[in-house]
């Protein structure tokens, strides 16, 4: 990376999916790898089943914790249709990781709006790299559906030039001891997916 280059990752999903925990872990990993890092998110209203996003930015020196539109290299979407909500932030050559799990918003349940179809196809038509995986299913296999966020981190780690052992060390520190093994398994599922 050049001195002024700053890379950005956008985490997006639905309140309750462990998005902020995932972006916290990512920031710790980036800091351990020797970069300056900033992240931004909003707590409060968003946690009640609403949209949640977290911007993570890193480089030699980072000023803004928020990325501007058209500048983000990587999107990690924790829910399928949420991947469509923030595309204005992405560069055209962005990589997208999508959990293919669907969570209906209220307007879809009430029959007022449709759930978009062929989201993965749309993303593949517009962006360089699209990785779709059912993180919820993989998390179940790892032992608990709540580790879906860590499954997605496994997939993200494949796109970042930071040693996997740094990720594993941070994951070990981020969870109570009895949950570490399950989360490391979830992380590996994401790497292998």
């Amino acid at each position, binding site marked *: 990376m050049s001195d002024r280059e700053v890379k950005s990752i956008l985490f997006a999903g639905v309140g309750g999916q462990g998005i902020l925990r995932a972006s916290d872990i990512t920031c710790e990993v980036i800091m351990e790898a020797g970069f300056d890092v900033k992240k931004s998110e909003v707590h409060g209203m968003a946690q009640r089943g609403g949209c949640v996003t977290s911007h993570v930015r890193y480089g030699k020196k980072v000023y803004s914790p928020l990325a501007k539109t058209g500048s983000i290299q990587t999107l990690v979407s924790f829910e399928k*249709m949420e991947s469509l909500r923030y595309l*204005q932030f992405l560069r055209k050559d962005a990589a997208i990781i999508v959990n293919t799990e669907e969570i209906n918003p209220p307007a879809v349940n009430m029959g007022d709006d449709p759930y978009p179809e062929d989201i993965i196809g749309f993303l593949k038509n517009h962006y360089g790299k699209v990785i779709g995986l059912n993180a919820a299913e993989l998390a179940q296999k790892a032992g608990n559906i709540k580790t879906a966020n860590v499954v997605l981190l496994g997939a993200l780690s494949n796109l970042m030039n930071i040693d996997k052992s740094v990720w594993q060390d941070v994951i070990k520190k981020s969870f109570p001891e009895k949950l570490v093994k399950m989360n490391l398994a979830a992380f590996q599922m994401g790497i292998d997916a």
Partner: protein
Amino acid sequence: MKALMSGNEAIARGAYEAGVRFAAAYPGTPSTEIMEQFCKYEGVYAEWSTNEKVAVEVAIGAALAGEKAMAVMKHVGVNVAADPIFTVSYTGINGALVIVSADDPSMHSSQNEQDNRNYARFAKIPMLEPADADEAKQYIKLAFEISARFDTPVFLRSTTRVSHSKSVVHLDEPGKYEDKTGFVYNAQKYVMVPVNARTQRVEVEKRERLLNDFVETFPENKMEINNPEVGIITAGMPYNYSKEVFPDYSYLKLGMVYPLPEKMIRDFASKVKKIYVVEELDPYLEEQIKALGVKVIGKEIFPYTNEFDPGVIKDAIEGNLQRAASPYKESLAARPPNLCPGCPHRGLFYALSKHKAYVHGDIGCYTLSYMKPLQGLHSCICMGASIGMAHGMSKAMKAKGKGKVVGVIGDSTFLHSGITSLLNLAYNNSDALIIILDNSTTAMTGMQEHPGTGYTLMGKEAKKVNLKDLVSVLGIENIEVIDPLDYKATRSAIKEELAKDGPSVIIAQRPCALFKRGGIKPKPALKVDTDKCEGCRSCIGLNCPPIAWKKGVTKEGSKRKGVSYIDAALCNGCGLCAQICKFGAIS
């Protein structure tokens, strides 16, 4: 040593490093985590006060005893606390007093986006404004130093993006606490009757002059001369946004936003040809700089509303409004925040919506019920307002409003600023019905204690107020206590109390579904019997997160176009949907 911290965590850490061991606050986004972090440090006293005014008064008391005291609140909390703040500016503070105001540009979790820098100028209280977590930690320490040195309260202003962004913070060894407490008797200084206030008023102006000199050499007002053609004067997070997109411009970054360094601003203006003032919300810096006769460009090109980001600043300065667009052009179903699965408010508002009343709302999770499909309340202004507004509307409407005007208020909000309004309602004999939504916690901000929970911020057991007794001594005779997840009982209580003459209060009592100490163990998830479901969507009308619609599941002899189903991973078996299903399809 370094650590990744949010601005709020850094403020708590900085206060602790500065030797601060006393803080009082009322929770409010985006300020809440400051106290939740501060209370964990060894040897501190930290309390949730009943409201922000009380918190400031508690901190003033501690400061007059010689302590370094901190009061913490969100921006609108400063409105509640404004009364003591304006006069403690006259008395001075003996020890040290810092008031943290966490503003919320863009109203991520607030009812307005007032710019609290105006309070500094209005109350003649110095204000520091950090731009990230590392600065937040450093500035709170400086704030305490300035407070002690100039015998003045000091504001530290944060915004949501500073409070809730995380970045690398350099940690220092915590300073030692020195007990300097003792009584200081000085009636001329601390008894603000007119004769003394007139004297102190002059002292305030003397202090202002001293501070005007001080800011000229304050090291956190920083000038960076790069490109002499274009310069930016800014403070707080907009500095980082600006540096991101215009790293080569010259900068005057103000760490202190009240008072402003007049000479330094003139000096900067003499070194740079064209100057932009980059600030969110009000043209606060801009107007003061223009009043100096310095030519700058500000709100002519920058928005008055909402928080900025690097793109907003770049677009405004380059005059280019073609921001990157999404290739996805279809409209996307919104995903608004919602009441949680098993939330007791859902039962109350579903029942209340059947009574066609005008419902005055208040500040809390339950405000979310205004949205479709519950559409449970019709006004919301500020903490505690529902009761006064319901009373006023009921009086104005006279017979037309009889049995049709309701105010709803959460337990924490009621104890914050509803008690005096309910006393007023009883005293002036209103026909309005007030419903206290008692979920035994301060839910919206993340489960904080209050006088109704029986515990303090520090986790100690405390005197627990009995809401029914409290309402009764205020003069309310018609009081009913119900479980809002008992649909029939809730309907009939509302019907009965609306019909009565004079004021009534219903206390809808059930702990928040997320509240662990509430003793509510999740029951097994409910299921929809797809043979019995007629697809009427009544249960969908509850807008409970686990209940979703599966289209196309038809049945012979039925007009149904789909069925409801319940996501077992989300459902906690509260049973409300089973009570409203007319076909007995949910169990």
